[in-house]
């Protein structure tokens, strides 16, 4: 499986979908989280909705996705987005809420407004929260993707896993499971760990060791 390249292409296929869905949900989730964190109206209206939807396992979006987008990659990407978007925006909102109010007040006094305020104070101030959200979102996205690929066959690691089951090939099933764990933890432990440690160190939240 590894030799004939099926595993490699399946991993690439899955990661490609994941990248699409994940970037889309980061692009929506971070601004959404900031908006919820900044606006009292959104706090009262959207936040309960987001928290409520978070209770819904992301795979439950699949039937709806299939009805809306048909049997296509877009349906899977939709499931991935729904899986990670909420976690990212909740965590971003937490990050915004956690910014030292003194810093916000000081920004007003120092005349920092508009885009400069959002890009220069809010986003960096909330960055520890945003990074946590992106990390969480990544693992949710990865799970949602695998679940989606298992249920609805269209290439990728999930399909390979399903194929192993149909062929009664335990070795294949286990190998694919290992590959899923491998990809998930490499990104989680290596990529996000480095970013998180760097941010925390720079922000003075953790002692440099």
């Amino acid at each position, binding site marked *: 499986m590894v030799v004939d390249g099926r595993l490699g292409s399946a991993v690439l296929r899955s990661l490609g979908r994941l990248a699409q869905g994940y970037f889309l949900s980061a692009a929506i989730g971070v601004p959404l989280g900031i908006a919820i964190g900044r606006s009292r109206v959104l706090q009262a209206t959207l936040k309960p909705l987001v928290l409520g939807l978070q209770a819904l396992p992301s795979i439950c979006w699949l039937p709806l996705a299939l009805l809306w987008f048909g049997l296509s990659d877009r349906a899977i990407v939709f499931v991935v987005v729904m899986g990670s978007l909420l976690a990212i925006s909740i965590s971003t909102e937490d990050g915004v809420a956690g910014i*030292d109010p*003194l*810093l916000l*007040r*000081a920004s*007003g*006094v*120092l*005349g*920092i*407004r508009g885009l*400069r305020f959002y890009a*220069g*104070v809010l986003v*960096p*101030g909330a*960055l520890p929260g945003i990074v946590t959200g992106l990390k969480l979102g990544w693992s949710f996205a990865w799970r949602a993707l695998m679940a989606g690929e298992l249920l609805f066959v269209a290439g990728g690691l999930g399909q390979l896993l399903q194929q192993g089951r149909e062929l009664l090939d335990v070795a294949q099933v286990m190998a694919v499971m290992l590959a899923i764990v491998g990809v998930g933890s490499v990104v989680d432990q290596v990529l996000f760990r480095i970013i998180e440690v760097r941010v925390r160190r*720079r*922000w*003075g939240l953790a002692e440099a060791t």
Partner: protein
Amino acid sequence: MWAVLKRFRQRFSTRHLLVPSRAREGLAKLAVRRVGHTFANEVVALRNVDIDVHSGEFVCLLGPSGCGKSTLLYALAGLVKPSGGHISLDGRDVKGPGPDRVLVFQEPALFPWLSVRQNLVFVLRAKGLGRPEAEARAREFIGRVALTGFEDALPHQLSGGMRMRVALARALAIDPSVLLMDEPFGALDAQTRSHMHELLQSIWMRDRKTVVFVTHNIREALVLGDRVVVMAGRPGRVLQDLEVRLPRPRDPDDEALVELSRRIRAMLGRAERASNTPPPMALTKENTDGEAAAPAGRVPDGAPPPVGAGL
């Protein structure tokens, strides 16, 4: 006998150094007119406060905690909207915070993710300066607070005094028409604080910026201020507006200055005793601002009030 005479002479000779401030000619830079403020919990923070601050003056608002001096400063900064009266800067009403009145908080409030230099450059760029100008100005003001060599340090790598110096440099670099300071050195140790006093005096003697400085430390007020506005609490009001005529730079251990601080302390003590009789029952019971004043009658006659005890 000689000691009494000496004491008397000292008292007499310092009399002309602290005089009631007289109304000055011309338009005030910062005018506070009949400002009152009542918090939502009915605590009267300020009542009928009138203060004129003229261009180039260093005014210290002095008073015990809970006398409304910080509330007044926040109103000047535009962070608090007073429930009555007017505040105007150069004839225009103050509405909301703005970079023409920069407030230095009790804590440095630096952006923790930016280096010392970037902290200055960021706010200067927000003011509309181009990158090269902002960089040059940042370098200049970092030099003024004697932090050259620490440009690339992050705030959490600096000591408390150094952080405060960065905050001061940042506020000065914006070149506000009024600099507001809310007990900026309160959290520093005594030695660092006196260094900060020297630094602030030398900076001020150089550009004569208009400064309103809030403190509860009598000697700090006398070392720094041209004018000391003595306030009393419950309700927050101006007791006396005094002009300090000591030559600069001032030494906090100067005999005349110590004598003046003794007089102000006595005055604050009298005011506190006066406002403690009859006991302000309603206020002590409902005082929720955390700075509940000493209950009535707790201050024995002659004992100095807690004001300035920190020095």
